[in-house]
């Protein structure tokens, strides 16, 4: 089953004005359940725009988008917010933890908007912090944590509502290579042990190599699609992966 189905996605800015700008030129892309995919490209290639569309933060100008079997284009903003909270987990380059809340409260945040009762919220947040090995720092404020620790809390937060897909935008971009390695290992763990679908946006080709499939964007088009090392290691490669776009 496909988690993400994008067909003919076009994104234009300043429509109808002299400086009209087309960022995506009709992207077709499907991501299967349990796939670890990476999208690479230079800055300005449109990968951030694509990520915003996948993450329901932005709407395409043209094209179709189905997330977890649900057509998203016709949904009103409030429904999109709910879908975003339930089906997408964001991991940002700059962590984006909320400063005055401790790690535990940060992880609970998405569940707050998903109407999870307080007790359940606390229990799940504690469990998630255990998975990312941050249980002992649950009561720490973000400014008391190192970059790698912050990113691990952020990953736990992305997992809060058990989303269909984790969208990671340059998750190691602000980290040194050693902690970056640690964070990548957590993603691999989530992928292998919990079967999470992960879309990694990066311009680091080495990290992309670790994933199952690598999509290269250039000037708003997919110019290459290839298997990564993860593909060979994964015996249960689903059928969709055989014929990359």
């Amino acid at each position, binding site marked *: 089953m496909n988690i993400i189905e994008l067909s003919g996605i076009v994104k234009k800015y300043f429509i109808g004005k002299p400086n009209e700008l087309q960022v995506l030129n009709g992207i077709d892309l499907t991501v299967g359940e349990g796939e670890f995919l990476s999208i690479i490209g230079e800055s300005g290639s449109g990968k951030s725009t694509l990520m915003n569309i996948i993450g329901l933060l932005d709407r395409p100008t043209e094209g179709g988008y189905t997330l977890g079997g649900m057509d998203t284009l016709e949904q009103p903003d409030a429904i999109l*917010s709910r879908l975003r909270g*339930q089906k997408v987990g964001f991991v*940002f380059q700059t962590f984006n933890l*909320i*400063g005055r809340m401790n790690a535990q409260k940060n992880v609970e*945040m998405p569940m*707050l*908007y*998903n109407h999870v009762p307080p007790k359940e919220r606390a229990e799940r947040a504690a469990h998630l912090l255990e998975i990312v090995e941050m249980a002992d720092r649950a009561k720490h404020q973000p400014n008391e944590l190192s970059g790698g620790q912050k990113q691990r809390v952020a990953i736990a937060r992305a997992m809060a509502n058990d989303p269909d897909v984790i969208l990671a935008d340059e998750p190691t971009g602000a980290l040194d290579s050693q902690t970056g390695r640690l964070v990548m290992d957590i993603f691999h763990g989530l992928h292998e042990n919990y079967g999470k679908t992960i879309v990694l946006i990066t311009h680091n080709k080495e990290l992309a190599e670790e994933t199952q499939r690598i999509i290269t964007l250039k000037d708003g088009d997919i110019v290459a699609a290839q298997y990564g090392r993860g593909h060979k290691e994964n015996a249960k490669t689903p059928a969709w992966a055989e014929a990359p776009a």
Partner: protein
Amino acid sequence: MNFRDNIGQAFTSLKANKMRALLTMLGIIIGISAVIAIMTMGNSMTVAMTEQFQELGVNNVTVYVQQKEDEFAGGRFGGGYETTDKDLLTDEMLADLREQYPDDIDAFSLAVGVGNGQTTQGSKYANLTLLGVNAEYKTTNNIEITRGRFVDDGDSESRKKVVVVSDKLVSNIFGEEDPIGKSILVELQGYVGTYVIIGVYEAEDSAMGPSTSSEADVVTEAYIPLKTAQLIMKVNGYEQATVMTAAGVNATEFTDKITGVLNKYYSRNEHFEIAAFSMESMVESITSMLNMMTLVIAAIAAIALLVGGIGVMNIMLVSITERTREIGVRKALGATNGEIRAQFIVEAIVICMIGGIIGIIVGILLGIVGTAVIGNYSGGDMEFKASVSVPSILLATGFSMAIGIFFGYYPANKAAKLDPIDALRFE
């Protein structure tokens, strides 16, 4: 996200910036406490005044001779005419009045002022105001006789030279000695007379009267029979009379009936007519004046509250700009526009409500202190009890909440409408 979560979030963000939250609240605190304090003081004054007038008797209607209004217009303003015997109220007029409204009138009190003076006994002295009164004067003025008796109609008919004096005068002149039957020499300007004391009354500290520094200099009234006074003053009528209305009679409405009856006697009088006012209407007009004053000051306090509200809005706008990224993150984590809006409105309401509650407490304390200060300033004659105005508290609470909603809405809406992509990119 439910309401409780919203409040929790609001407290979390306020705790992160305690100083700022406190300063923002300060405007609300000042506004609310000013409103409450002023309302409390105004309320206390109204209560005290009303009680005072109640003591003087709201049933009393004062009837008096006044110059006709068109006389003022006739170019003689400021000059006026002296009343002569034919202009004054007479026993005959009052008897007529009582005949027409026998059930409405309890008593008439009549008084003829003789003058201010002194009585001396060796080196001892006492100040007094000599006043000729009728027997009913005792009832209408709530005079308490402690020894002997009050002047009566018999004393008046035979123009006896008897006097009822105050306990203060007695203690100044006679000390512990029984004064009944003793004579005193009364010296007024242009009049000296000897009177026999027939009674002693309890002098109350008058709230409205001038406060005196020493017990020895206090001026009290000495009552002599009405006709004795008329003889001294060479008058047959009265410039003024007090009508005590029966229980259940609306004194304010009764004033018109009184003037209606009495002015028939004045239809051919060139310069004078009868006017009447009731204590009740005095109470009403003083109360409404106080209420007006309270309202005006409260309006000024409300402006302070408005300024406080603008302060809240300002700080909310700053806070939202600072937290743009947080708003973007919250949206990425699934917050709807409505939830973001609710979060910031609740935050503004929480600021205003905390400020409001502190303001109410401070306001009540200030009101109590202020009332005590006014009580002291008035010489302690008048009993001021701080009575907290309950409607003002409800009003203040509601108002501070309304300020939170009103001044929180615009910033909150601005936050809700932020584009999550821009917000996440915000540095």
